[in-house]
């Protein structure tokens, strides 16, 4: 339980900073810190057991059908990473309190930070790989918010976008890879997958899964060729950089490689891919870091390089290399977080982090300088510091592995080269920032910061020294359990110590330091050499690729999706016709012939009705340009269809059709008032022919299909419903029982859609009422003369008399709905129409005053009532929307039935009334606004270029 709590705490805590911010910055920081501290303490309570070698597991089922469970487990590797994430997180939170200025929104910052923290802890503790993917995506999203925290800076926004594009894109690879892996292993639980190494490596899916997973890991951990996003993410506030790029975000990829090491490593493909990516990244990152003038840029490329080192070690695939990798993860997290924080202090107190403008800070900022020099020396791999130990182990492993070249000399050589650059840029950090003459042109007066800023890095530097001097005491057990967990086996015997005797690694180290210092001594010359070489700018390439993608998708979308409804319909109908005819022509003879079922006789009345339908449809087509006449003709079609439903024994449909017809006519008339009354001639002959042909073909196709179906006997699902409606749903009206019971979930979805549609109408028209289009509406004049009779008395009286009758019919139809034709939907329409009558007779203003109903609330209330019915079933331990019914009897009333479908139907009813009324009310409000001229504040009534300007700003 407490494992899940460790993950959930940061997420829950993320709600607090925004609230606590009102009590001041200290309260905000302390609250945030307490959340992390609590999670950290919980983690530590598990530490003794984990260090003894136990694995703590906890699991709940979430979507077992998909293999998705909420399961967490804590072993050595998880403990190491969770410890780093939460521990360093605590320091970062402290530091941020003093780093952020008053203008920065601290509440938002801490919220993002906690979200990120929770997502990271989720990754390292997840047992289920699908759950892990969820957290993985969450880190991409929350890091986007953190990197772009200073959203007023274009670099911040662009860096955040780039990080999101690269890591999010990598996330897509990872999803595919993990699904393949889970498929190959037959389980999505990591603890199971880790035991199926042979099965997975023998699977044909192994290689694709490996490639995809590595794609995701490399993108996240900034491995070549995805390394370019990390330096651009440096536009973030420094605490964010320190957190994301020392201990967490970029370590997520490393973590996953370590986590999956037992199943994926050990093959040739793994070694080649991982080790070479690591090696290239290590050397390239270190080389570029040497020439970065921005302190954070230098550290960013150094991070890239060190991640490459860890990747290289993981790639080598030997147990000792994995131990070294785990050890270096700890060491890198400590010294790199400290260095980032120190860079932040320098930036904060001196006002610049450009190396060329720094120098001579040793005496001005003694504390900062001391901390910075120790941490940088550890980064360089100097003895008695922790960086030295893991680098020695790396060189040792490189020496032993004959990978890459037969003689085995190339790997050690390249590893040493990486170390050389590493020494050079680390000492450049020390020498060019803290040594040299003091200057008189610092942007601010340099001095040591308040304790809140230097204490966190001091703590980390203390760890750097302690682990460096007493590695076995301070890190031995952790490294042993973590690497054992990473290997899925007992860790090899090793003893962390400073002195290993005179080994090749020591020699390589000495060479690296000597050559590195030489490079620094001759720095101007080396830099000149570098300046002459090519400098491929990743950002330009990235932007180019993105721009090309945008162009491509824009071309694709704009050509397919050009806004012409005719074109969409033509494509849609054309495709349906083509598919239908292809299927028809491809079928054999028997299937093509009409079925042998007896057709019903068509009586004279039916023929008359059919004639009416045909003629009015034809007339609609012929007269469609006169929109009002077309509307009248469609009304006729509606009446005939209603009669058809009655004739074919579908009274429910007939009732619905009648009510819907009326509502539709009113809606369209309201809208038609503002629209041209005549449809202009727009299509040329060619298009008319095309559309006509498509329409005829489509109609013929549907006709043939209907004929084919209706002349055959087929068994349908309706028998089931007819048999079970009464015993299972307690209603004799099958249609209603299907709506509220059998397919209640569909109905629930549909009323939500209906509500959303009404709200969308409201929102769209709100733009016409109050937005930039409002002046245009105000100045619109009706296109023909009006009679003077606004609210004729006859109509008013008639509708008043009708109101109670109509409401009565509504209630009646609602109540009988379960057993006879009717129900909430029809009743809703009936009541809505009864109310609309009053609006029509006495005008909007009058009716609105007498019906002060908030239709928004009505829609929401309806959906909530329906949902509450469904949840009621869940409370009683049945699935959502299970309905129940029983019979009761009362004196006078007699025996009657109560069903739980009734409140559900009330929800439907409320939503329908609310939706219809909201749409009508909003449309009629437009008419009301017409003659109210307000004082003009805009230069012109409707400014079409404003649209373009608004679009342009949005795109930027």
């Amino acid at each position, binding site marked *: 339980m407490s494992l899940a709590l460790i993950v959930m705490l940061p997420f829950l805590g993320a709600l607090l900073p925004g609230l606590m911010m009102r009590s001041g910055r200290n309260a905000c920081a302390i609250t945030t810190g307490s959340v992390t501290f609590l999670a950290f303490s919980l983690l530590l309570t598990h530490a003794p057991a984990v260090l003894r070698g136990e694995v703590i597991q906890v699991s709940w089922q979430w979507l077992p059908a998909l293999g998705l469970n909420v399961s967490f487990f804590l072993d050595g590797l998880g403990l190491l990473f969770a410890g780093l994430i939460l521990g360093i997180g605590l320091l970062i939170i402290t530091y941020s309190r003093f780093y952020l200025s008053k203008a920065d929104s601290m509440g938002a910052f801490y919220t993002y930070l906690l979200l990120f923290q929770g997502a990271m802890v989720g990754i390292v503790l997840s047992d289920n790989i699908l759950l892990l993917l969820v957290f993985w995506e969450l880190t991409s999203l929350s890091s986007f918010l953190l990197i772009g925290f200073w959203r007023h800076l274009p670099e911040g926004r662009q860096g955040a976008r780039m990080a999101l594009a690269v890591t999010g894109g990598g996330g897509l690879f990872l999803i595919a890879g993990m699904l393949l892996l889970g498929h190959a292993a037959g389980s999505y639980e990591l603890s199971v997958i880790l035991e199926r190494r042979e099965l997975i490596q023998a699977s044909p899916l192994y290689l694709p899964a490996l490639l995809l997973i590595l794609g995701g890991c490399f993108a996240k951990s900034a491995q070549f060729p995805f390394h370019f996003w990390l330096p651009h993410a440096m536009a973030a506030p420094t605490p964010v950089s320190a957190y994301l790029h020392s201990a967490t975000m970029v370590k997520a990829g490393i973590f996953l490689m370590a986590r999956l090491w037992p199943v994926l490593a050990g093959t040739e493909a793994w070694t080649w891919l991982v080790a070479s990516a690591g090696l290239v990244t290590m050397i390239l990152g270190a080389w570029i870091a040497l020439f970065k003038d921005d302190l954070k840029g230098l550290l960013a490329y150094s991070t890239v390089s060190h991640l490459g080192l860890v990747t290289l070690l993981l790639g080598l695939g030997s147990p000792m290399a994995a131990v070294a990798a785990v050890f270096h993860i700890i060491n890198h997290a400590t010294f790199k977080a400290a260095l980032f924080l120190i860079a932040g202090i320098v930036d904060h107190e001196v006002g610049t982090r450009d190396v060329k403008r720094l120098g001579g800070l040793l005496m001005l900022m003694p504390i900062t300088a001391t901390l910075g020099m120790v941490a940088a020396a550890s980064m360089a791999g100097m003895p008695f510091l922790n960086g030295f130990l893991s680098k020695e182990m790396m060189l040792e492993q490189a020496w032993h592995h004959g990978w890459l070249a037969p003689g085995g000399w190339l790997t050690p050589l390249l590893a040493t080269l990486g170390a050389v650059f590493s020494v050079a840029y680390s000492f450049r950090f020390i020498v060019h920032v803290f040594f040299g003459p003091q200057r008189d042109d610092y942007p601010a007066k340099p001095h040591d910061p308040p304790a809140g800023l230097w204490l966190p890095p001091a703590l980390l530097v203390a760890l750097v020294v302690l682990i460096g001097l007493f590695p076995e005491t301070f890190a031995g057990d952790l490294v042993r359990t973590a690497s054992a967990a990473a290997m899925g086996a007992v860790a090899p015997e090793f003893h962390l110590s400073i002195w290993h005797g005179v080994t090749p690694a020591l020699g390589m180290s000495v060479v690296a330091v000597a050559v590195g210092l030489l490079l620094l001594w001759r720095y101007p010359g080396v830099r000149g050499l570098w300046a002459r070489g090519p400098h491929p700018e990743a950002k330009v390439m990235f932007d180019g690729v993105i721009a090309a993608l945008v162009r491509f998708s824009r071309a694709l979308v704009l050509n397919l999706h050009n806004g012409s409804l005719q074109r969409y319909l033509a494509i849609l109908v054309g495709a349906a016709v083509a598919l239908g005819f292809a299927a028809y022509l491809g079928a054999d003879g028997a299937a093509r012939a009409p079925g042998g079922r007896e057709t019903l006789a068509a009586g*004279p*009345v039916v023929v*008359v009705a059919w*004639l*009416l339908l045909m*003629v*009015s449809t034809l*007339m609609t087509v012929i007269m469609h340009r006169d929109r*009002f*006449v077309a*509307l*009248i003709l469609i*009304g*006729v079609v509606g009446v*005939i269809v*209603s*009669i058809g439903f*009655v*004739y074919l*024994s579908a*009274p429910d449909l*007939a*009732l619905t059709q*009648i*009510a819907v*017809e*009326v509502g539709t*006519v*009113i809606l369209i*008339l*309201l809208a*038609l*008032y503002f629209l041209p009354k005549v449809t202009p001639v727009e299509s040329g002959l060619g298009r008319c022919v095309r559309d006509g042909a498509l329409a005829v073909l489509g109609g013929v196709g549907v006709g043939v299909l209907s004929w084919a179906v209706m002349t055959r006997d087929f068994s349908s699902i309706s028998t089931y419903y007819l048999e079970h409606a009464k015993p299972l749903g307690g209603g004799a009206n099958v249609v209603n029982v299907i709506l509220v019971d059998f397919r209640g979930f569909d109905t629930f979805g549909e009323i939500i859609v209906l509500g959303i549609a009404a709200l969308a109408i409201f929102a769209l028209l709100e733009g016409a009422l109050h937005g930039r289009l409002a002046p245009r509406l105000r100045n619109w004049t*009706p*296109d*023909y003369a*009006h*009679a003077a*009779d*606004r*609210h004729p008395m006859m*109509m008013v009286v008639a509708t008043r008399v*009708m109101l109670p*009758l*109509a409401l009565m*019919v509504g209630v009646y139809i609602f109540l009988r709905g379960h057993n006879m*034709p009717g129900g909430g939907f029809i009743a809703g329409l*009936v009541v809505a*129409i009864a109310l*609309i*009558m009053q*609006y*029509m007779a006495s*005008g*909007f203003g009058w009716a609105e005053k007498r019906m002060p109903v908030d239709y928004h609330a009505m829609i929401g209330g309806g959906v909530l009532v329906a949902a509450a019915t469904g949840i009621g079933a869940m409370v009683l331990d049945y699935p959502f929307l299970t309905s129940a019914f029983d019979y009761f009897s009362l004196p006078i009333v007699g025996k009657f039935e109560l069903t739980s479908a009734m409140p559900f139907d009330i929800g439907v009813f409320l939503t329908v009334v609310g939706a219809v009324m909201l749409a*009508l009310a909003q*449309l*009629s409000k437009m*008419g*009301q606004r017409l003659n109210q001229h307000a004082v003009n504040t805009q230069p012109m009534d409707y400014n079409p270029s404003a649209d373009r300007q608004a679009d342009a700003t949005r795109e930027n």
Partner: protein
Amino acid sequence: MIQLALYFGFFAVSVALLLNLWRLAVGPKLMNRILAVDTMVINAIALIVLFGIQYRTTMYFESALLLAMFGFISTVAYCRFVLRGDIIE
């Protein structure tokens, strides 16, 4: 006897519907068409009630009721549109 009356009823209503159709098609004015639809709705009510009598069921009665109650609203809406443009002022 009732069967004969029904036959006559169906015949009369059908003829009425055809005549409505004629008026709808020919016009000549908007008002003629609106009234044609209105009358058609009344005939539709008659038709539904006749169906009910023929099949000896009350099941269809509500359809006739709704048509009777709301059929005129469409007509009113059409007329208001012609007269005032805005049907809800």
